């Protein structure tokens, strides 16, 4: 029952629009056709785009892993003053709207670091991808590392292994599932990056995602867009399958946790991990954000709040930033509530432990089904909404509900991924104990699982809200010109000439980043506060 509502929701607001849109690519006046595929793969441009997508995703993933593993050690395995603060700082980029990240890097490489001449280069985009995904690796690997029993390494050292050898032969193999699952997730995010590439890629660099946007929105070439969507879907399903396979191994391995062991204090001998971590924190995360903030304070007459005063004026878009911010807040609130409600239902269903083989495979199918929106191009979702939901049986074109619904579709996988581990960590014998005391299934859900799920609820709500606030891919199709959301307005402003437009965009980026960061920090604090008393 709890599965029916979310499935129906995804069916109507995800599967139907996406399948319809892709289906259009295979039909012309004469019926079924593969002309789109022929055209897409006949063009040198398509092959170049696929190559660029894979190259960006692979490089971005490798760099994130290489830098993220030392970061996981420093931030989760060691103790030092300011660790909580640094962890929070590192986790902020992941929830920053892609538009903000793109603008921040663009500002950095066209401003203070313009002499490097890497403004619209491959390297600059990879750095932005690392900025965005560093915390994914740090978090997945770090939480695992913190739980590894230190005595295993001590045993290896007692047998004569050097620290490096113990790391290579004992620790890294134990962490391998976490690293692999984090890497698969990062690959997924890199391969479907849209906002960053749109802003930083210029005309040289494109990915499947930006190309789908270009083909649908600019050229109205649906057959080619459909062919590209299917390629994108294949790339994404592949990395999802990989992530799933490694995650189930990780959840088994997590049993070797040790409780109550304090992390050792950070020492000078830890420098091989500290140096790359500092480099990322200062260079990759700190610099772009600092550049964004300083640039937003720069005016033709010197330093000042001129750009922030402009936020109330209507620029070339005809809408003030404050008005767009109000639209964004209202939309994101609706989307977050929708996503968390549905996510709770999905997580309850997925946290069951079915006894039969049939039940287990049904659950796995369901699990992948709810991850799919992570991978299907948000652009496809947005455009699919436009072509399916604008006429009977569901005419929602003039309704303002479409944007929150689309944002909820995009946020749902993150919500499920946040709530599910919490519910799965609940010992099934707790439910059994409740049942032997006479509690039926509904009472067990309400009195045992419900209070437990609350632990993840704050974080899930924060993720959903932050994602919705920054959602750009789908929203860019659905927002009406007179009521844009903040990311859509920023993208519009940054593409317009004029110092005032640019300044407004920078100030708006800072505002958006501040709101998102605050929401996430509050959500994390809430989560920890609730978890502490348990």
């Amino acid at each position, binding site marked *: 029952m709890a599965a029916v509502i979310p499935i129906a929701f995804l069916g109507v607001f995800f599967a139907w629009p996406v399948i319809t849109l892709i289906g259009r690519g295979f039909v012309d006046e004469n019926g079924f056709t593969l002309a789109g595929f022929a055209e897409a793969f006949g063009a040198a441009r398509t092959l170049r785009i696929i190559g660029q997508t894979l190259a960006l995703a692979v490089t971005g993933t490798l760099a994130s892993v290489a830098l993220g593993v030392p970061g996981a050690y420093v931030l989760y395995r060691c103790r030092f003053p300011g660790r909580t603060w640094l962890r929070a700082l590192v986790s902020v980029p992941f929830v920053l709207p892609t538009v903000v990240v793109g603008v921040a890097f663009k500002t950095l490489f066209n401003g203070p670091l313009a002499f490097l001449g890497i403004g619209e280069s491959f390297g600059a985009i990879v750095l932005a991808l690392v900025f965005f995904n560093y915390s994914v690796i740090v978090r997945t690997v770090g939480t695992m590392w913190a739980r590894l029993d230190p005595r295993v390494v001590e045993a290896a050292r007692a047998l004569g292994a050097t620290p490096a050898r113990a790391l290579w032969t004992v620790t890294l193999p134990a962490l391998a599932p976490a690293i692999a699952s984090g890497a698969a997730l990062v690959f997924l995010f890199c391969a479907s990056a849209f906002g960053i590439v749109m802003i930083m890629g210029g005309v040289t660099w494109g990915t499947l995602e930006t190309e789908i946007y270009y083909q649908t929105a600019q050229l109205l070439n649906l057959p080619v867009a459909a062919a590209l969507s299917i390629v994108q879907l294949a790339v994404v399903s592949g990395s999802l399958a990989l992530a799933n396979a490694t995650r189930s191994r990780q959840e088994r391995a997590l049993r070797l946790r040790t409780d109550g062991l304090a992390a050792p204090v950070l020492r000078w001998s830890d420098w091989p991990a500290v140096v790359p971590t500092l480099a990322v924190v200062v260079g990759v995360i700190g610099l772009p954000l600092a550049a964004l903030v300083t640039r937003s304070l720069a005016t033709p007459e010197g330093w000042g709040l001129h750009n922030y005063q402009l936020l109330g004026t209507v620029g070339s878009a005809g809408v003030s930033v404050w008005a767009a911010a109000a639209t964004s807040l209202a939309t994101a609130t609706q989307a977050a509530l929708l996503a968390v409600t549905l996510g709770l239902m999905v997580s309850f269903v997925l946290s069951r432990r079915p*006894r039969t083989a049939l039940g287990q495979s049904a659950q796995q199918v369901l699990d992948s089904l709810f991850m799919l929106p992570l991978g299907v191009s948000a652009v496809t979702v947005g455009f699919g909404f436009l072509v399916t939901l604008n006429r009977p049986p569901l005419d929602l074109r003039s309704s303002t509900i479409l944007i929150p619904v689309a944002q909820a579709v995009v946020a749902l996988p993150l919500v499920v991924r946040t709530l599910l581990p919490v519910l799965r960590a609940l*010992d099934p*014998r*707790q439910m*059994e*104990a*409740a*049942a*032997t*005391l*006479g*509690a*039926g299934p509904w*009472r067990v859900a309400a*009195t*045992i699982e419900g*209070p*437990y799920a609350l632990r993840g609820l704050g974080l899930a709500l924060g993720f959903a809200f932050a994602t919705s606030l920054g959602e750009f891919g789908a929203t860019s199709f659905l927002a009406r010109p007179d009521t844009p959301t903040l990311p859509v307005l920023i993208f519009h402003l940054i593409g317009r000439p004029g110092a005032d437009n640019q300044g407004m965009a920078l100030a708006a980026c800072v505002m958006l980043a501040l709101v998102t960061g605050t929401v996430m920090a509050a959500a994390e604090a809430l989560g920890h506060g609730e978890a502490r*008393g*348990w």
Partner: protein
Amino acid sequence: MVTGLEVRGASVHYGGTVAVDRVSLTVAPGEMVALLGASGSGKSSLLRAVAGLEPLASGTIAWEADDLAGVPVHRRGFGMMFQDGQLFPHLNVAGNVGYGLFDWDKAERAARVAELLDIVGLSGLGPRQVTELSGGQAQRVALARSLAPKPRMLLLDEPLSALDRGLRERLVVMLGRYSAEPTPRRAT
């Protein structure tokens, strides 16, 4: 006519492994039965099957000659005490002991909780968080919790194995004292 519990030819399978192989036994009202065996010999599985937590691959379990096959766990009226207590961490001591009394009147529930805390020697600890209890106290709360709804039968799954010897002996005495009530119990 058999009164009490009757297990006939019960088998429990986990995938391909046979945990319990055609076990038959009866427990009369007031009788205390202990299951002995090496670890991994299926004692817990048999208890879980009686409680309704594992489905039977074959055989029957009946109470007062009624087959329990279609009766879900929460309707069997059998109490069970788990090896590690499984207290609910989000409820305090009184909340745990009173959990099975959800359809009781509020005042009656409070009285019953106080009565049971008295019995297990933890009077006045109702408002205490269960995370602040010692191992022995936690097991006594677990015992009180499983006795509170007046189960027709109490299943004890190695409830004392995690405790030190002195505590274990005190709890054995406590368990023995309440087997005087007309309730059959089985322990492993």
